[in-house]
């Protein structure tokens, strides 16, 4: 298929036909597996235990011979060989930068090292997501995520500078201050979560600001990390007069992203668009997490990632825990022959939640809440507030013999501990035991978390 992509940024790669992409992948996979098998203690042990050796890779399908790797293995390896684990695979003095997953301490933060080449790599790859929706060399971008050691900051700034200029960081500020700085510096593109953009829209509405008139040079908003309904994209595009595009990334993906919507955006012709997987630098598989078999086109499954370029902390057949809906190459009218995932429906195969960019594992919240012997039961609800912001409601029931004073003390203690654990402020209040489900019944699985944000985005704000 001919490439019909006015904003191609790596035009030779983006115009490759499928057989050339797969030949490139095989060549790089063989080199990467040979190098890792020779130099990386973690993978050498993992592979030896499963009887795999690098010479078994003679075709791309042979990737299925390689054992899976998982987050729990990475964390155990780090605990045995802190801080990076034997998975680092390069000399310590070759590590130029680090990233951490935003996981809570109990379930283990992953620490990833990056060489100079790794660092530059992700800047270049991250640039694709900015170039494809139309960023030009003189365009300015606002970055709406708080600065941390997690995946996005450094890579996004490099990606923006590779295509445009002058990224500025405003994710640590309140929405009003963000609007002020967007007015001060100008903005042609911005990265923001769907709930963040919803919050910005809600604030504009409450202040009587028309975003179209206030930010006429804004071309697009790039979102990720949360799923969304089609109506939300269409409404927000109309409110702001912009295109919404979506990217997929993680710390494991060299702390950058490895998939992006093309020029067509997140929603095209009233339907969900596609994200193009960056097949030139990765081999992606989508598997049924129970059978471990590859899913069929249009089916959802767990994304398994093999990074073909990463030097430090490499990634080979890593089970991401991310749930995506896969489509084969050739379906997108832009002509890029990459594998595809559906935009707006990326979730988790486990119960991990992302709130305000922070990771929350329900099991960790269980551990903190039930460590207080006064607590009888609890429930959490993640929702979008009237101000358009992500919030977590914590409803706590205490035992019958707990005094009102002790109850208040319990609530204050839980809020402080959960804040320390997750960085998120839980909105806690007391309820009676009869207001909560009885999870002690042996047939009832304890699902103490509900996520109402999708419904909140669908409802949205009116203009």
């Amino acid at each position, binding site marked *: 298929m001919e490439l019909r992509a006015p904003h191609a940024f790596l035009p030779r*790669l983006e115009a490759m036909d499928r057989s050339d992409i797969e030949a490139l992948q095989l060549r790089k996979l063989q*080199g990467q597996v040979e190098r890792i098998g020779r130099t990386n203690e973690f993978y050498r042990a993992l592979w030896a235990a499963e009887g795999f050796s690098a010479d078994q890779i003679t075709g791309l399908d042979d990737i299925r011979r390689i054992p899976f790797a998982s987050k729990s293995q990475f964390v155990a390896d780090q605990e045995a060989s802190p801080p990076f684990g034997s998975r680092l695979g390069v000399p310590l003095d070759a590590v130029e930068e680090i990233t951490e997953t935003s996981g809570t301490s109990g379930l283990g933060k992953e620490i990833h090292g990056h060489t100079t080449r790794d660092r530059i790599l992700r800047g*270049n790859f991250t640039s694709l997501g900015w170039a494809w929706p139309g960023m030009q060399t003189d365009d300015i971008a606002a970055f709406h995520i708080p600065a941390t050691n997690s995946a996005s900051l450094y890579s996004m700034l490099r990606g923006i500078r590779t295509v445009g200029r002058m990224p500025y960081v405003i994710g640590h500020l309140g929405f009003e201050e963000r609007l002020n700085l967007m007015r001060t510096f100008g903005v042609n593109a911005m990265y923001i979560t769907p709930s963040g953009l919803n919050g910005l829209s809600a604030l504009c509405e409450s202040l009587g600001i028309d975003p179209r008139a206030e930010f006429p040079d804004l071309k697009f908003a790039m979102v990720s990390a949360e799923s969304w309904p089609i109506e939300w994209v269409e409404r927000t595009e109309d409110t702001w007069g912009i295109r919404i595009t979506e990217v997929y990334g993680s710390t494991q993906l060299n702390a950058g992203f490895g998939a992006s919507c093309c020029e067509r955006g997140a929603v095209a012709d009233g339907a969900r668009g596609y994200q193009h997987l960056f097949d030139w630098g990765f081999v992606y598989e989508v598997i049924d997490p129970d059978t471990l078999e590859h899913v069929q086109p249009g089916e959802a499954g767990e994304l398994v990632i093999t990074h073909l370029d990463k030097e430090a902390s490499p990634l080979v057949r890593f089970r991401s825990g991310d749930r995506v809906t896969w489509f084969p190459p050739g379906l997108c009218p832009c002509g890029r022959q990459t594998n595809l995932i559906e935009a707006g429906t990326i979730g988790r195969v486990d119960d991990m939640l992302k709130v305000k960019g922070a990771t929350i594992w329900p099991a960790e919240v269980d551990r903190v809440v039930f460590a207080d012997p006064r607590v009888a039961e609890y429930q959490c609800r993640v929702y979008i507030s009237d101000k358009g912001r992500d919030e977590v409601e914590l409803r706590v029931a205490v035992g019958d013999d707990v005094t009102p004073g002790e109850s208040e003390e319990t609530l204050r203690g839980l809020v402080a501990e959960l804040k320390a654990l997750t960085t998120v402020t839980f909105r806690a209040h007391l309820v009676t035991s009869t207001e909560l489900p009885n999870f002690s019944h042996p047939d009832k699985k304890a699902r103490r978390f509900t996520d109402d944000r999708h419904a909140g985005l669908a409802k949205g704000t009116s203009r």
Partner: protein
Amino acid sequence: MSDEVRSELTRERADELLRSIWHASREIASSELPNLVPRAREIEAMAHFMLYDADGGVVDGR
């Protein structure tokens, strides 16, 4: 940009120049000149990825 320089440079010629930069920076990066090594690594990495579109980031034979 005030000092902008323009020329009739083809992409193929740009790739040749980048390969020269890559080779030179790689040699310096593997030297024992401590003040130069970190920045040479950076130049080598940037040249590598400016050539990414030429060969998909494959190093050997560059």
